[in-house]
């Protein structure tokens, strides 16, 4: 039987983009074959749209319209601008690993500390590590990332390693209008303890670019990871990131995501609690204004008994901005004594601001504690009046209350330096607003 694929105009453009990018895509013949299959999987679905349930609030066909061609390899000027852009967000003492326009920039990066080892995705694919392009979770954007990933980091943390300083992965865009496709894998050994920071930053001259990232992260038994992701891309940019997390037994994972940039963004996380006695804490903060659209979607899969998951998601939405939070907790048959809760709180600063919350619980075990809750509203008038009666002008009073609202999420970060960095990102947003 012949299947005729009806191609849309953008479909034909994508085919051209993939073909034209061939020589930029590293990998052996086997890797190229995996890429081709991934691209076909993408082609069958195309850009996600509102009739796909998981994407109903974030229709990329409307919001992103097209996938931009791959950015050129960064030249001297691009690297110079990238170096300037990373300076204000670099954490003192952290080992910086820098990707510029989708390409690892060794000259801007630090050596990884003892107990950690690193190669680039490019090197790994050139030696045939095709498994780096495969994931259990799939959707069109994950497939597209596998097809087009140009570079990324492949990091191993040896068993029992305790890193004193954070690893900081910095994605820097320097292009006015193009795509960067990156993909990284981080494996954290048994009993290791790591702090990882991910930044998305626009350098001077970067505008309506697209950052497409995928992260494959595994935690061994009794491993501990604190991950802070700070997305402060250009307000004209798009960011689509898919992150897959696998946790072993008695592991502890704290995730903080701050979305404060991008015209359109989607951060989709897939967490599998695969070992008993693990603990997951997720704090998400969306800070959006203008006509920004920010979507955080999390799927938490309790595959085994005795795990705990907590999600607290906060959004501050001004002007005509749109914040989306979707959280799904799956409790598999036999995953008894699961304790899973999620909470979303939206602060709407204007009449046209929009928040969509979609919590979902799928529970197939009978001895569990699960729940979700949501609130949405404006700033409390009584609190505002109290502050104004003490002399704070309206915008300053608002800023103080917004800071308090966001601060509640950030206070949970145990590491002082990291908490300061995350707080600073939130304060920059507030200052820009006032």
């Amino acid at each position, binding site marked *: 039987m012949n299947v005729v694929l009806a191609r849309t105009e953008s479909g034909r453009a994508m085919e051209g983009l993939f073909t034209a990018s061939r020589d930029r895509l590293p990998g052996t013949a086997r890797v190229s074959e995996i890429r081709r299959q991934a691209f076909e999987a993408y082609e069958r679905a195309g850009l996600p749209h509102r009739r796909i349930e998981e994407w109903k609030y974030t229709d990329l066909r409307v919001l992103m319209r097209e996938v931009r061609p791959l950015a050129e390899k960064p030249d001297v000027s691009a690297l110079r601008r990238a170096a300037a852009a990373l300076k204000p967000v670099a954490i003192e003492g952290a080992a910086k690993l820098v990707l510029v326009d989708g390409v690892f920039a060794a000259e801007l990066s630090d050596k990884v500390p003892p107990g950690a080892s690193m190669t680039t995705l490019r090197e790994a694919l050139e030696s045939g590590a095709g498994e780096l392009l495969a994931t259990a979770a799939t959707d069109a954007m994950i497939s597209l990332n596998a097809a087009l990933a140009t570079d990324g980091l492949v990091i191993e943390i040896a068993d029992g390693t305790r890193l004193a300083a954070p690893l900081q992965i910095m994605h820097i865009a320097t292009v006015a209008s193009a795509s960067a496709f990156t993909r990284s894998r981080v494996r954290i050994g048994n009993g290791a303890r790591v702090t990882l920071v991910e930044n998305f930053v626009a350098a001077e001259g970067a505008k309506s670019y697209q950052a497409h990232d995928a992260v494959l992260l595994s935690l061994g038994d009794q491993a501990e990871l604190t991950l802070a992701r700070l997305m402060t891309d250009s307000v004209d940019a798009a960011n689509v990131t898919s992150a897959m997390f696998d946790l072993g037994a008695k592991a502890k994972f704290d995730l903080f995501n701050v979305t404060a940039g991008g015209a359109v963004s989607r951060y989709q996380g897939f967490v599998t609690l695969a070992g008993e006695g693990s603990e997951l804490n997720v704090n998400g903060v969306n800070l959006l204004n203008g006509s920004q659209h920010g979507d955080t979607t999390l799927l938490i899969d309790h595959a085994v008994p005795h795990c705990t998951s907590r999600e607290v998601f906060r959004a501050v939405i001004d002007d005509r901005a749109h914040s989306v939070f979707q959280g799904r907790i799956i409790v598999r048959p036999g995953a008894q004594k699961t304790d899973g809760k999620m909470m979303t709180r939206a602060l709407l600063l204007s009449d046209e601001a929009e928040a969509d919350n979609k919590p979902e619980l799928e529970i197939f075990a009978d001895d569990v504690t699960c729940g979700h809750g949501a609130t949405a509203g404006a700033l409390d008038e009584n609190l505002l009046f109290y502050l104004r009666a003490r002399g704070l002008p309206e915008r300053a009073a608002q800023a103080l209350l917004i800071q308090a609202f966001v601060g*509640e999420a950030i206070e949970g970060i145990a590491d002082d330096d990291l908490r300061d960095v995350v707080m600073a990102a939130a304060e920059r947003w507030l200052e820009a607003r006032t």
Partner: protein
Amino acid sequence: MMALLEVKDLQVRVEDREILHGLSLTVNRGEVHAIMGPNGSGKSTLSHVIAGKPGYEVTGGEILFDGQDLLEMEPDERAAKGVFLAFQYPVEIPGVTTWNFLHAALNAQRKARGEAEMSSPAFLKKVREVAKSLNVPQDMLKRGVNVGFSGGEKKRNEVLQMALFEPSLCILDEMDSGLDIDALRIAADGVNALRSPDRAMVVITHYQRLLNYIVPDFVHVMSRGRVVTSGGKELALELEESGYAQFEDA
């Protein structure tokens, strides 16, 4: 000498109901006025309108503060000019430390008056002195504004702010509500320490009890949105005997 506060024939509506029907009151620097009256007489409305709380519509009359039209000013401008309302129910603000809040508020007031902002060390020194003089424990300053404070601690925090901001007009709205006699005495001592020839106070209360501790120069009785009688401090004692019923029928 110009009066500090002049309320002239003030008429105020909330939604479709008129609450104040032509209220007049003159307060000079150095004076302490008590405003008494039954529930619903409009006492708190008067305090809210002076401080600039949204939701009240002034349909007639005026309020002059140091000769300036107070009703034209935003609440924060009034604070910077020296109007201070001690709230009946101070709000809790989780996530904002008392320390941060006080520093931001003091500097906002100073900035509005064209004064230099106060640095953190200078502010720390000042707030510690004030806290010590009022027996406010230091750890209260580190906690969220009023979060987990007892009724007495909340009121003491209001008095602390009054001492810190040094307003020329203090309006104390039902300061005694929710306080036991010891807490009341501590708060009242704090207020009395702030009495000065440059400062006026308006003490709003339902009960005479508070006026044993903060002794007023003048007492006004409000009923149904008006001042129905005024006198010296002995008027409060008379009311204690006779109650408000005589005015309800007026």
